[in-house]
Structures are given as C-alpha cells and as structure tokens.
C-alpha cells in the first residue's frame, strides 16, 4: 500500500470534486447516471477513509507528528505548501465527514426539494465534501484557509436555491423576504467577516515566523515555534483574538451564533444535516488544531473568556429552544447549546476536556444530523414544522416517531448513547481544568453547564411531548401518511447503530484521540519541555 501512504488523503479530499466535475458533463435528463456518479464518489471517499483507518497506526506518537503526510510546493513565492496529514484528532472527524456524506446522498435519492435539479444539487454537495475533508487534513494555514472558505459557496447556493420559500417579516426590511434569501446571505456575510480577520491572524503568524528563519505558513513548524514560546505578548494576544473571531463565528459561539438558526431553518434537509454534522465542527476543530498548539500561552489567557461564552451559549441555547414553535428551529438552537459544551471542553485545556470536545463533536454530528433528517422527513409529509400541528405523530407514523424519540434521548445526553460522553466529560474537565486556570470560573461554569443539561432534557422532552404524544390534529384526518421509506432507513439505521455503539463503547473514538490529545496538552503546556528557538530569537 505504498501508494496509499502518499495518495490516500489527497484522494479522499479530491475524489468528491472530481465526481462533481464528471456529473457536470452528464446531460441533465440522465438522472439515474447523475445519482449513481454522486453516490459512487461519496462511497469511494468513504471506503478510502476506511482503508485509512486500517492503515492508521493508533496509539503512541507525540503531538505534531502526522501520518500519511504529503508536503509539496504549492505557491512557491510565499512559501505556502500543499501539506496534508492526519493524526488521532483529525481521523475521527475526517471519517465522520465522509460517512455523513454517503448517508446524505442516499437520503437525497428520493428527497429533492424544489426546484429539484439533482445534478446541480449533487455537484454542490460533492464540492462541499472536498472543502470539509480538506479542512480536516490541511497542515498549511493557506491551504486550510482555502478549504475552510470553499464550503461557503456550495452552502450559500444550497440554502439560497433549495431553501425555505416562506415569506417572513424581518426587522429592517420594508417588504417581507423569503427566508432562504435572508438566511443564505446572512450565513455568508457572518462567516466571511470572521474569516477576513482569521486571515489577518494567519498572516501575522507568518510574518512573525520570519524572525526565526524563513517565513512559513506550515502548521507543524508554527506549532514547534509556538511551543517554544516564539509568539508572545500583545502580538500573540491580538493574533489569537483575530483567529478567535473567525473560528467562533463558524462554531458558532454566543454571541456570533445568530446566523445559525436562520441558516439551519432555511436550508434544505440535506443542507441542514451537513451544516450541523460537519460544518460546525470546522470551527471547533480549528481551535484544537491551530489556536491551542500555536499560541498555548494565549489560549491560557483567553480560556476563561471562552468558557464564559460557552456556558452563556449553553444556557441561552436551551432557553431559546424552549421558546420555539418551529421544530427545525428548535433543533438549530439546540446546536448552539451542544457546541457550547464542546467549546467548554476545549476551554479547559485539559486532556479530558479536549477529548470530551472531540467525542462531543462526533456525537453531535451523528445525533443532530439524524434529528435534522427526521425533521426534514416530517416536514416532507406534513408540509409544516409547527410543533403544535404535529402532535400525535406517534400514532400516524410510529416508526418515524420512534426514531425521533430515540434521537431526542441521545441528544439530551442519556447515558448509554453517544451524546452522554461529550457533555459529561466536558463537565468533569471543567471541574479540574489545566493548572493555572481560574478554578472559580471553571467550577462555576461546570455548575451552570450542569443546569444546562437539565434544561436540555427539558426542551427535548418538550419537543417530544408536542410532536409525538397526544392525539393527531383534526386537520390530518383522512390523510394517509407513508411511514419511513427504504432510503430513509438506509440513511438512518447506520447513524442509530453508531450512536448506540459510541454510547456503549466510546473507546472506539478515544482509541484514536487520547494519546494525541494527552501529548498535545503536554507539549503545549508542560513547562518542563522547552525546545530552544531556532534563529536565536
């Protein structure tokens, strides 16, 4: 498997977009071929990522060493390289991304939202896949930036073209606007605003690295420099702040989250799934991969602030959920809360906390992905997302109702299901954060976070009660509802199985992450290990 060593990651990243280009060549009316190509390229990328797991050497190895590494010149003039590689932290996320993509294609097989056009939709999905996979393997800041931004275009079109067409009164607009139009541009502008500053942060790192040799965008080299204390004082503080803006908008953290409920609600089902399951992870992943290792000291000084924003997000998200009448919007706000737990875990800067964050990301991807699938399918049948009209769903569609109940339980963090570990461990982590961090702030956060878990249970049960229980509304009398069909089953069963498996046996994630995370925390914060700076700086 020599070739896989050097080509594996590149193929996983670019097979989807190549599939997309091929689809572009197929005439529109050959829908079968279009779908087959779409599914084919998603499956190939997923199978390749399975091969990746089988070839991956688990355990051991210190942080900042990568497997399947490729490093070629890309933009020679500015010393930016095509540098990709993978370690225990990015592996689960990359596999999650390729896995969800396959399910999304299967689901969309017979679920095309108006104006249909499977060809265009699949091309956009596959382009999105390339951007997401690429972000998880990029080891060069410019390359990372490009992949991080590439996802914007397809998502913009997905929301804008296939999104929700209901007219809504939006403050500041004279006329009523279609939800999709408002949501798509808001999504784009928020992210773009964040990433403009993120880019300035990257460039500042690049500039500063010139003090210690050739200027570089390479994350591995920058991590070495950062670990040795190359970036300090006001400079580093500002750089962290600039990157924080970019990542926090993407996560999204309170108070940068306002694009999320709109985008999620307006997006077509598959769009919401991909957005929730993978796109949100790009931001939190970037915190772990870039902010902490390159600017460890700044991470320490920003950590309490991040923790506070996270718990505000948890409480705010939960309370906002309780005020929703729209099912999809409720799920969207629940993401704000869940990502709050993830960010709280990261803010502790401890190995438990960061492990919690990663398993939390994977679990949130699976669970919220499934929730959006179910919500989309119910909307497909009822043509409404108003929870007050959906009551008694259990009687009309028992299987659908059962899956919804299961997923809601997973989402509220029921022990034994995947959602539990992220929340639980992130609270454990904040009881005992990295040495030197304010115990007061973190233990208070823990308590508030714990209250948040109760609220989470509250709104999930509130949703279940409204949607599943009770008697069906009179308006549905005489309607025949088709319960879960085979494409939906094919897309959802794997998710359900994984949610249970990870819940019962979380080791399959920790096997990959623990060693890397421990080593990350050690190299970043252990003052005994001080490498010397090159260049005498």
């Amino acid at each position, binding site marked *: 498997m020599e070739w896989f060593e050097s080509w594996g990651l590149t193929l996983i990243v670019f097979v989807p977009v190549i599939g997309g280009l091929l689809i572009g060549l197929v005439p529109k009316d050959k829908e079968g071929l279009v779908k087959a190509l779409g599914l084919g390229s998603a499956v190939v990328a997923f199978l390749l990522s399975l091969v990746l797991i089988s070839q991956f050497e688990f355990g051991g190895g210190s942080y900042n060493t990568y497997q399947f590494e490729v490093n070629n010149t*890309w*933009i*020679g*003039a*500015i010393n930016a390289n095509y540098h990709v590689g993978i370690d225990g932290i990015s592996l689960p996320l990359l596999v999650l991304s390729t896995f969800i993509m396959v399910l999304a294609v299967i689901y969309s097989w017979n679920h095309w939202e108006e*104006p249909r056009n499977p060809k265009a939709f699949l091309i956009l999905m596959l382009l999105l896949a390339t951007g997401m996979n690429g972000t998880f393997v990029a080891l060069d800041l*410019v390359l990372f*930036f*490009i992949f991080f*931004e*590439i996802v*914007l*275009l397809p998502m*913009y*079109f997905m929301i*804008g*073209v296939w999104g929700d067409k209901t007219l809504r009164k939006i403050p500041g607009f004279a006329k009523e606007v279609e939800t*999709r*139009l408002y949501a*798509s*541009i808001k999504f*784009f*502008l928020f992210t*773009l*605003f964040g990433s*403009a*500053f993120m*880019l*300035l942060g990257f*460039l*500042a790192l*690049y*500039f500063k690295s010139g003090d210690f040799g050739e200027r570089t965008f390479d994350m591995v080299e920058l991590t070495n420099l950062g670990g040795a204390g190359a970036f300090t004082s006001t400079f580093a503080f500002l750089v962290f702040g600039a990157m924080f803006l970019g990542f926090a908008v993407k996560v999204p953290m309170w108070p940068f989250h306002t694009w999320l409920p709109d985008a999620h609600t307006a997006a077509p089902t598959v769009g919401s799934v991909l957005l929730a399951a993978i796109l949100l992870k790009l931001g939190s992943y970037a915190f772990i991969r870039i902010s902490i290792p390159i600017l460890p000291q700044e991470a320490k000084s920003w950590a309490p602030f991040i923790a506070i924003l996270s718990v505000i997000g948890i409480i705010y998200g939960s309370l906002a959920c309780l005020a929703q009448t729209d099912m999809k919007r409720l799920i969207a706000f629940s993401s704000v809360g869940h990502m709050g737990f993830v960010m709280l875990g990261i803010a502790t800067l401890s190995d438990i906390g960061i492990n919690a964050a990663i398993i939390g990301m994977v679990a949130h991807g699976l669970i919220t992905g499934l929730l959006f699938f179910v919500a989309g399918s119910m909307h497909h049948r009822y043509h409404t997302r108003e929870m007050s009209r959906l009551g008694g769903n259990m009687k009309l569609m028992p299987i659908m109702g059962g899956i919804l109940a299961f997923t809601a339980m997973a989402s509220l963090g029921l022990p034994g299901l995947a959602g539990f570990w992220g929340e639980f461990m992130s609270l454990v982590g904040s009881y005992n954060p990295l040495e030197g961090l304010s115990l007061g702030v973190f233990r208070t956060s823990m308590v508030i976070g714990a209250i948040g878990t109760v609220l989470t249970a509250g709104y999930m049960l509130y949703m279940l009660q409204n949607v599943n229980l009770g008697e069906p509304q009179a308006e549905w009398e005489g309607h025949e509802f088709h319960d879960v069909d085979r494409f939906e089953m094919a897309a959802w069963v794997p998710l359900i199985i994984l949610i249970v498996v990870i819940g019962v046996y979380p080791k399959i994630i920790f096997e990959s992450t623990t060693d890397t995370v421990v080593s990350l925390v050690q190299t970043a914060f252990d003052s005994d290990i001080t490498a010397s700076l090159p260049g005498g700086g």
Partner: protein
Amino acid sequence: MTFEMDYLAIAPELVIVATMLVVFALDLILTRPKKYWTATAAVAGTALAAVPLIFLAVDGEVRSMFDGSYVVDEFALVLKGLFIVSAYLVLLLSHQYIESERFYQGEYYFLILASVLGSLLMASSRDLIILFVGLELTTGPLYLLAGWRKGDLKSNEASLKYFIMGVLSTGILLWGMSLLYGLTGEVKFSGLAEATVGLETEPAMILAVLFVILGFAFKISAAPFHFWAPDTYEGAPTPVTAYLSVNSKAAGFVAMLLVMYLALPGLSDIWAPALWILAALSMTLGNLSALRQTNIVRLLAYSSIAQAGFMLVPFAAAAVAGSNLEQGFSATITYLVIYSLMNIGAFAVVIAVSNRLGTGQIDGWSGLGKIDARLGILVAIFFFSLAGIPPLAGWFAKFEMFRSVIIAGGSATIVLAVIAAINAVIAFYYYARVVKAVWLDDPAADVIIEPERQSSGSLRLALLITAGLTVAIGIYPSFATFVGEASRVIATGGG
C-alpha cells in the same frame, strides 16, 4: 550620448503601429458588408504583437535605450503582456457589439490600437516625458470612444464628462511635473530620485508631488476624484467601458506607481499619507455607493473604484510604514494583473447577458440561471472572484494585499488592513446580489428570451479565456506569482 535603436525591444510597439495602418487602409478599401475584416486584422495584429514579447522574455536581457529613458526589462514585459492580452480580450468583446449596432468599425479599432500603443510606451518609460506622452496617448482616443454611441445622450454625456475631467487632470499632472523639473532640472526617474533627496520640506516640492498625485488620482478614478467614472462607464459602449476600467486604469495606475516608486522614493513622507487616504476613501466610498446601484455597469464602475482602493493598499501601506517599498509594489502589481483578467471577464459576461436578456438592470437578470445555466455559472465565477472568494483568482489578489500590509507592519497600516477587511465583506454583499438575482430569484413572468441572440464566437472565446484563467490562478496561484517576482527586479534605467 548615443541613440542606438534596438528594434527587437520596440517590436511589439512596431507591430501595433503596423496593425493600425493596416486597419486604416482596410477601412478605406473595403465596402460596408466586408468591414468586419478590420476587426479580424486588429485581433490578429494584437496577437502578433505578443510574439516579440515572448522572444524578449526568453532572451531575458534588460534593454535600455535613449540614455535610459526607455527600458525593456522583465517588469515592462509583464505589463506589456498584460496590456496586449487585455486589449486582445477587449477586441474579442467588441466585435459583435460594434458590428450589431452599426458603428463605424475601422475608426473604432484604429483608436483602440492607438490607445494600446500608448500603454505599451508607458510601461517602458523611465522619464517623465515619455511617461506623459504614453499616458496621454492611452487616454486620448478614449475620449472619442466613450462617445461612440452618437445618437445616445448618455454616451455624449459620458464622452464630454470624461474629456473635461481628463483634460483637467492632465493639466494638473503636467503642472506638477513641470514643478518637479523646475526644482531639480531632471526628467529621468533615476535623476529625479537623486535630486529630490532632502527636498521634502521645500514647499514647492510638496505642491509638485501633490499635484502629480492629484492628476493621477483623477485618471485612476480614485475617490474623492471619481465622480466622472460611473456616468462615463454607463454611457460608453460596454466594450469601451471594459477597456476603460482595465487597460486605461491599469495604465494610470502603473504610471503613478512608477513615478512614486522610481522617481520620488525619497519624498515618501509627502505622498505616502496621500496614498493612504486615497486607498481608504476609494475602498469605502466605492463600496458604499456600489451597494445602492441597480444598473450592472454602474455597479461595476463603483466596484472598480473600490478595487482601485484595494490595489493601492499594499503600496500605500509599505510607504506609510517606511518599510521596503518593493514588497508593496509587487503586491499591487499582482493585484492589478489578476483584477484586469477577472474584470474583463465580468464585462464580457455583462455583454453576453445583456445581449441575451436585453437589459443591463440587475433586476432584469432574475432567474438567468434557469434560462441559460452556462451564462449563470460564468456570472457566479466572475462576480465571486471579484469578491475574493476562494477558489477563484480574486482570493489570491486579496491575500497578497493583506500579506504585504502585515509584512509592512506599523499601526497606521494595521488600521488600513482592518478597513480593507471590513470593505471586503461589504463588497461581497453587492457582488452576491448579482449572483442572487441570477441563481436565487425566479425569472420575471414577462421576460423575453431571444434564442437566436446567442453570443458570437469571439465573445465566447473571451469568456473561455478569462474564466479559465480565473479558475486556474485561483487553484494554483503560482501561475500569477511570476508577476510579483518580475516587479521586484524592476530596472531603473540607470544613469
């Protein structure tokens, strides 16, 4: 002092002159239905002019003539390449437009070529006189071309406004230059660079530099001297507008930078703050005004004002920070080249769509994606590229801008970087508005689609070239970095 002619060095200019004469002669001979041969000759001649460029580039020798006043080095070659390629593209755009509206064809091509000749001269100029002659030869023919749609009042207005503003700015520029000459007795850049050292407190010198900047600011329509641009752009025939916003703008830009960089580096205390202000104002005013536009050409006019601001940023930042000007200069030139490509593409697609749907109003473009998906995709490519969204070429231009600002360092430049970052987001909004109309909105019920009004072959070729380059440079920016590298080794022409 010897004046040896190096004919290979000026071969591109000679080819253009010859083409002008051929076009002129053809126009006299041919009967009306056969006039399209003048277009063919112009396109072929422009392409031919690129051949000696390749020889010169392969040769790689720095050729200096007329005692160092006229220099052909790598930098000049890159710029000449840009001018010739963009002129070639504009000619491709013009063909269908000029023929369908029954304009005078021969004169049109003759004047465009004359303007190209001016920009080629300008790229090599290393003294004030050649620079001035080159610049005026570039803009002069455009006063006529802007009014080419004779029957249209708007076109008349365009021409008149452009002429009056142009003449005014020329006067100011020339006055500034004459002061420079009066104070130093030098016209050559290398001589000026030495003679102006230590004169930065001399009141007349301050006046001279400010006048020169003022003159150029009018030419490149930098805010607050931009008021002529939207009216002129809207009234002029669209291919001429494309030429105005790319070639003539680039020529003005390069001229200004050459003077600042090569002739007046010692006076950066005077011109650096002025450029900083021009950059910040152009970005902000251009973008804010563009937000409100409903006509696509006016939108592009304001966008090009804003883009001029972005382009100035690296050079202004480097100068204000007092750091090495070379980095800022090369980033600005890189931006200029990428901007030229994608902006011509944007105008090409505007011509193609206006042709198809019969309107230049953004609202009128609603649902284009459903009517003609290919044109819709092209609109998305060019407008998102102008907005700087990866993986399209525009991102690298913006990236280079930010990179050189950060390298320049200093608080004044960081402020400029933040202004630029905010402006990049504002700019996205109006570019996206066009894409939104094309892809997100439904076609109007009464839209008249004229299937027979397809784009001509030459227009398609122009679209293909620009779109291909926009995507290719975006994915593999090394295709464009040679521009920046060439700008670093610019020869001053010696003494």
